[in-house]
């Protein structure tokens, strides 16, 4: 087990200098040497992380090379090794490629629009008066706090073919701006969520709506950290607003943006609940993204957990690459 190896590793080597001075060789009333205390405190956390996150990740890797169906879930038959067959099956399937394309395109548009809107709102909040700023922040909190399933429900209703107000609003616009689809005299009845492209437009709007407050609040916190003297100096030098933004604000906020971008990419790649509600469960295979495809493959009868695992492995590798950058950025800024 992970915890025992850590403990033995600690015993052989001396504790860090700061500690030796005070604790070395001291044995408390409980009978445990002082150096062992942090390791004992870590036992439950390590058990959970090793047993329920890291071990399952290894299992996922193993399963991706196995045939795992209902019999294996029940434990009546051991899993059969199939080598790369799962990956071959997955990679030769059109659904995988459309799911990958959907995930990539969604992440690109979702992340860029969330960042642009979030940054704009963050700058706006910084310039608003104290009361107005608080008012807007509280409004944004509502969008941010709504559970993902409820987000999906809300936007599904707004994009509803008959009762949705998206169609109502489009009807209001002059035809040269938004002409009804071919063969229709009005937008009413246009089903948005049946086809992949409009489905993803709805998903992007939903995720941008729910995601921009986090960006805005983070950017606002970053802006508050920039010394006011820099802006005063720029003003004295006669720098314009856009110039100041590019030469002072952006460079100062670079670490914030790095972290926000990576977090947004990770979240948008993993998006599941909102898509699940908008597309009414894993029904429309063309509309799958990678997480939906993995889950649908693994759990829709006939259960194919092996191929589901293979798809998850692809998704995990993509996310791990982005995570490495995230971790590096955080480690750079934090003293650990």
């Amino acid at each position, binding site marked *: 087990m992970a915890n025992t190896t850590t403990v033995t590793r600690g015993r052989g080597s001396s*504790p*860090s200098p700061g500690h030796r001075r005070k604790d070395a060789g001291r044995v408390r009333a409980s009978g445990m040497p002082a150096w062992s*205390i*942090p390791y004992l*405190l*870590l036992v*439950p*956390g390590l058990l*959970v992380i090793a047993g*329920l*996150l890291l071990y*399952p*990740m290894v*299992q*996922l890797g193993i*399963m991706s090379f196995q045939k*795992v169906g209902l019999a294996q*879930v029940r434990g009546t038959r051991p899993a059969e090794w199939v080598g790369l067959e799962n990956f071959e099956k997955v990679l030769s399937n059109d659904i995988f490629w459309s799911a990958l394309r959907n995930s990539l395109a969604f992440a690109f548009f979702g992340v860029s629009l969330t960042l642009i809107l979030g940054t704009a709102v963050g700058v*706006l*909040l910084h*310039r608003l008066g104290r009361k107005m700023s608080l*008012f807007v922040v509280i*409004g944004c909190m509502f*969008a*941010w*706090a*709504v559970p*993902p*399933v*409820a987000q999906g429900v*809300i936007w599904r*209703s707004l994009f509803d073919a*008959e*009762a949705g*107000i998206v*169609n*109502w609003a489009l009807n209001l616009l002059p035809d040269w701006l938004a002409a009804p689809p071919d063969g229709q005299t009005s937008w*009413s009845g246009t089903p948005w969520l049946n086809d992949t492209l409009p489905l993803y437009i709805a998903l992007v709007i939903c995720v941008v709506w729910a995601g921009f407050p*986090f960006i805005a*609040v*983070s950017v606002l*916190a970053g802006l*508050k*950290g920039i010394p006011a003297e820099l802006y005063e100096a720029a003003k004295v030098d006669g720098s314009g607003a856009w110039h100041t933004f590019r030469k002072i604000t952006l460079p100062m906020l670079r*670490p914030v943006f790095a*972290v*926000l971008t990576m977090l947004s990419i990770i979240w948008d790649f*993993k998006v599941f609940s909102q898509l*699940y509600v908008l597309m*009414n469960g894993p029904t429309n295979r063309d509309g799958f993204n990678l997480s939906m495809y993995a*889950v649908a493959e693994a759990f829709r009868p006939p259960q194919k957990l092996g191929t589901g695992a293979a798809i*998850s492995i692809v*998704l*995990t590798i993509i*996310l791990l690459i982005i*995570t490495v950058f*995230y971790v590096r950025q*955080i480690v750079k*800024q*934090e003293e650990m």
Partner: protein
Amino acid sequence: MSPIARKRLGKVALNAAGLLVFLFATFPVYWMVSTGFKENDQIFTTEFIPFPTHFTFEHFERVLTEGVANNSIWLYMRNSAVVALGTVLIGSAFALLSATAIARFRFKGRGAFLITLLIVQMLPSEGLLIPLYMMVKRVGLGDQLLGLIVTQVALTLPFGVWMLRTFVAAVPKSLEEAAWIDGASRLTTFWKVLFPLVAPGLVATSIFSFITAWNDLVFALYLMSGSEGYTMPVALQFFFGQEGVDWGAIMAGSTLMTIPVVVFFLFVQRRMVQGLTAGAVKG
């Protein structure tokens, strides 16, 4: 235009933009709540009806008394609450121990543990779902809320520890040392000195875990096969019926599910920003 007039106009424009952002953020939430109070003829129309002119509790009443998928909504609410509270209780205890270890001690493997925390909280839960599903079924926790609690503890623990460690670190070490000098044991010091001072941090991480577990769809959907074990996010799906969507009911249900999250969220959003962006945001 005089500079003063220009400045005033700029201020008006800024405030107008702020109002627009406010409306964009809150309108969909308002739409959810208000639809729950509208009569059906006001819901199923291509017209835009900004607020319910015939205010009705019919949908809320129907959802609360009739339920869905052969069970009362209270059962799903209870399941959700059991899972979320169970996650909070187990998760917070574990998180506090780990956070204390990280914030109070320098030990071999500390940096590795911190980096592991950062990495595992980014893992895709849909990927973890597949092996965890196998594990939970094998140990006989399939279809039991405890199985769901266990998975939620795993998913929330890394960020919980990450968030809580800053609270523990903020408690001055001298306070604890003073207690030791007075002869208190480490354990007494922990309970009498550290615990009360990190209580706000525990509340913050607990709320975070509660929200995550309360919101979860994918684990509840696939670990539970009978409607007895469904949580609110899963139960809501059943209002999207074969014959059409019961918007009044689903909006009422969504509102009921959203209320606790919004209330709790207002307390912890700042902490969540700090936890996620760590040193990147100095604010």
